[in-house]
């Protein structure tokens, strides 16, 4: 590794563009920042050696310098952007509509979108955001972020720390703001220094060479900002551990007691009641929504809520064995008003209305036009009995029960275990008789087996209940996201609202050279200079960039 000794005596690392101490351009490195083709010096990272640009001997160095390139970083971001955009053209796999003829992605995309859909599916865009290559892209951006920041922050920090008040003449004359004054008295110079101090510049004096600097801390803004981003990425990573992040969904029927998923059987929930309020079209308060409500046609939910009890199970229980439950909390969950316990949060997230709970039937004579009940019985649809004894000696035996009845090629079956469309095959035993009659009864269906039945069964009444849908969430990563976002914001503010301004005064003969540099707001620094030289004969700096253009 070759070091470069500047004429001021400072030894610079290889790849340095401007001497770290005096700022003199180092002849053989001017091509790096393109200074050889312009009058003005490129002040990026104060002309320090970004080492990755200069040596990469081992494989580690090569990987490092690859990620150290901002160009690579930008390309990664652009590729990710394009991929994300493509991912939104057709719906992602989880958003394939429920009513689609086939929800199998292998069929759905081609059937719905033709050849493009097929390509989309084959390239894996239907599951883009959790695909391995998308995740790798995000990871590469993260790596690039860390290495780019490290590789720039460290040399810049060192350069600004090592900088000397005494700068080389060329350094000053090739700054954007520069002026030369032939005759300046010591008094005038002192005045300028005092004025700079008043404007809260830090003054460094080296044998009459003066460096006035303020707001260096603004230069760290981007790096602070990147630390915030890295923390956010880290928080997203931690969401993969179930202990830190959990997102489940549970349906609980009114009156039902159920284990809360994701809690390892430790917590149970009971839904005491579910309430749905809809917008009342006749309410004066809703006057202005009248048209909209009418247009919608269906009732619109205004609020829905569940009254729940949370139980904790004794830990020793084997899964499935009846646990002993201890009530820990009884509360109400409303939309946007979740229930919190032991690190878990329950959100009201959905509902299904009007599932059958119980049904009562009567037995009457088939020929009786008034259908006078000879006896009644009630079936609990979640746990029906095998046989019901009626008051007047009738017996009804359940031959078969279809909670969610449908006809499958002429054969009655159930679609699910939930009583959404209950139907029964029942034997009716008249009092003291073993001559039984078969009936089939369901919602809107009442069929006798042979058409010779003496007795008929009718539905008298039914009870409905609602099902409450709750999201179960545990998220310990949220504070980390907040910390990351706050640091991100601090970095932005730090870089945005403060300016790093430097003014150099270089005595030359009886006069002096004056030059200035800032990372933004050139107008501001010109104002500063105007103020400090107002009482003197020193020439105002000239914006050499404007001259150049």
């Amino acid at each position: 590794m070759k070091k470069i000794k500047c004429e001021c005596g400072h030894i610079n690392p290889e790849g340095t563009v401007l001497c770290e101490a005096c700022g003199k351009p180092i002849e053989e490195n001017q091509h790096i920042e393109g200074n050889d083709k312009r009058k003005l010096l490129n002040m990026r990272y104060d002309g320090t050696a970004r080492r990755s640009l200069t040596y990469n001997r081992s494989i580690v160095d090569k990987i490092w310098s690859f990620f150290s390139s901002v160009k690579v970083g930008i390309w990664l971001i652009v590729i990710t952007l394009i991929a994300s955009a493509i991912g939104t053209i057709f719906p992602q796999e989880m958003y394939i509509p429920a009513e689609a003829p086939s929800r199998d992605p292998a069929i759905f995309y081609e059937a719905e979108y033709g050849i493009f859909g097929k390509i989309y599916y084959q390239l894996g865009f239907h599951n883009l955001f959790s695909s391995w290559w998308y995740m790798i892209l995000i990871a590469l951006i993260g790596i690039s972020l860390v290495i780019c920041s490290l590789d720039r922050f460290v040399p810049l920090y060192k350069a600004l720390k090592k900088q000397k008040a005494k700068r080389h003449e060329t350094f000053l004359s090739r700054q954007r703001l520069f002026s030369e004054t032939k005759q300046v008295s010591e008094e005038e110079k002192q005045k300028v220094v005092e004025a700079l101090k008043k404007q809260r510049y830090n003054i460094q004096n080296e044998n009459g060479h003066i460096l006035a600097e303020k707001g260096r801390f603004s230069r760290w803004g981007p790096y602070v900002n990147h630390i915030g981003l890295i923390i956010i990425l880290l928080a997203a990573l931690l969401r993969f551990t179930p202990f830190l992040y959990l997102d489940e969904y549970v349906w609980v029927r009114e009156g039902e007691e159920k284990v809360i998923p994701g809690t390892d059987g430790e917590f149970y929930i009971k839904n005491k009641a579910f309430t749905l309020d809809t917008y009342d079209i006749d309410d004066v308060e809703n006057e202005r929504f009248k048209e909209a409500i009418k247009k919608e046609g269906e009732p619109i939910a205004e609020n829905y809520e569940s009254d729940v009890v949370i139980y904790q199970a004794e830990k020793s229980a084997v899964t499935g064995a009846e646990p002993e439950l201890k009530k820990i909390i009884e509360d109400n969950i409303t939309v946007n008003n979740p229930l919190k316990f032991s690190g878990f949060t329950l959100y009201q997230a959905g509902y299904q209305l009007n599932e059958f709970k119980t049904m009562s039937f009567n037995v009457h004579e088939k020929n009786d036009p008034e259908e006078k009940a000879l006896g009644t019985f009630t079936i609990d649809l979640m746990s029906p009995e095998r046989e019901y004894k009626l008051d007047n000696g009738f017996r009804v035996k359940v031959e078969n029960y279809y909670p969610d009845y449908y006809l499958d090629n002429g054969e009655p079956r159930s679609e699910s275990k939930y009583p959404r469309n209950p139907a029964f095959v029942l034997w009716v035993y008249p009092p003291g008789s073993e001559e039984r009659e078969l009936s089939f009864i369901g919602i809107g269906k009442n069929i006798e087996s042979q058409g010779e039945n003496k007795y008929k069964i009718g539905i008298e009444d039914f009870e409905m209940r609602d099902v409450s849908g709750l999201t179960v969430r545990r998220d310990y990563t949220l504070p980390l996201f907040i910390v990351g976002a706050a640091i991100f914001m601090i970095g932005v503010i730090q870089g945005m609202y403060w300016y790093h301004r430097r003014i150099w005064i270089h005595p030359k003969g009886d006069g002096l050279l004056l030059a200035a540099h800032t990372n933004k707001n050139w107008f501001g620094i010109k104002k500063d200079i105007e103020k400090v030289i107002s009482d003197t004969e020193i020439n105002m700096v000239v914006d050499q960039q404007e001259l150049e253009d």
Partner: protein
Amino acid sequence: MSLEQRKANKKNKKRRRLVFRSIILLLLLSAVVFALVSNFNKDKTSYEAGDKAPDFKLQQVNKNNELESIQLSDLEGKGVMLNFWATYCKPCEAEMPFMEKLYPEYKDKGIEIVAVSLDANELVINRFIDKYDLTFPTPHDANSEVMDLYDVGPIPSTFFINPDGEIEEVVNGALTLDKLEDHFQEILPKK
């Protein structure tokens, strides 16, 4: 500073830089690997072949079987076919006769069938058992707890558990008579 000192200095610095970069790259790499592996595991069922089958205890509802309740750990030393089914599930219904057909023979050889029903009520289970004259134990998972424990997706889903209590194989979907017999051979206790 002598030339040699300077050289040694330079060498030191270089080594430090290499170590520093290697550590940073390793840290970043492990974070990426962690993300990819967790993302890959997310979609998988939690128990697979080779894992120890988690224990559970459920009430047994088949009146043709003498057991009142089933606890998996009590069956250690036997091969266990742990089947998840429901009366409304057609492919489950299709494989039931095969299970019943092989049960008496393999019970004597040391295999137990545990057919966990995911139905909501016992009546439908009993009617189903009567229809097919099932004799093996059918525990009732009324609260879907064991289903959650085994992370059962679409049914039928069957776990073949060897006499040591380890899952030998997981089969999603219905089994034929031949396949069922093959799987029984795999979990047969050694004499």
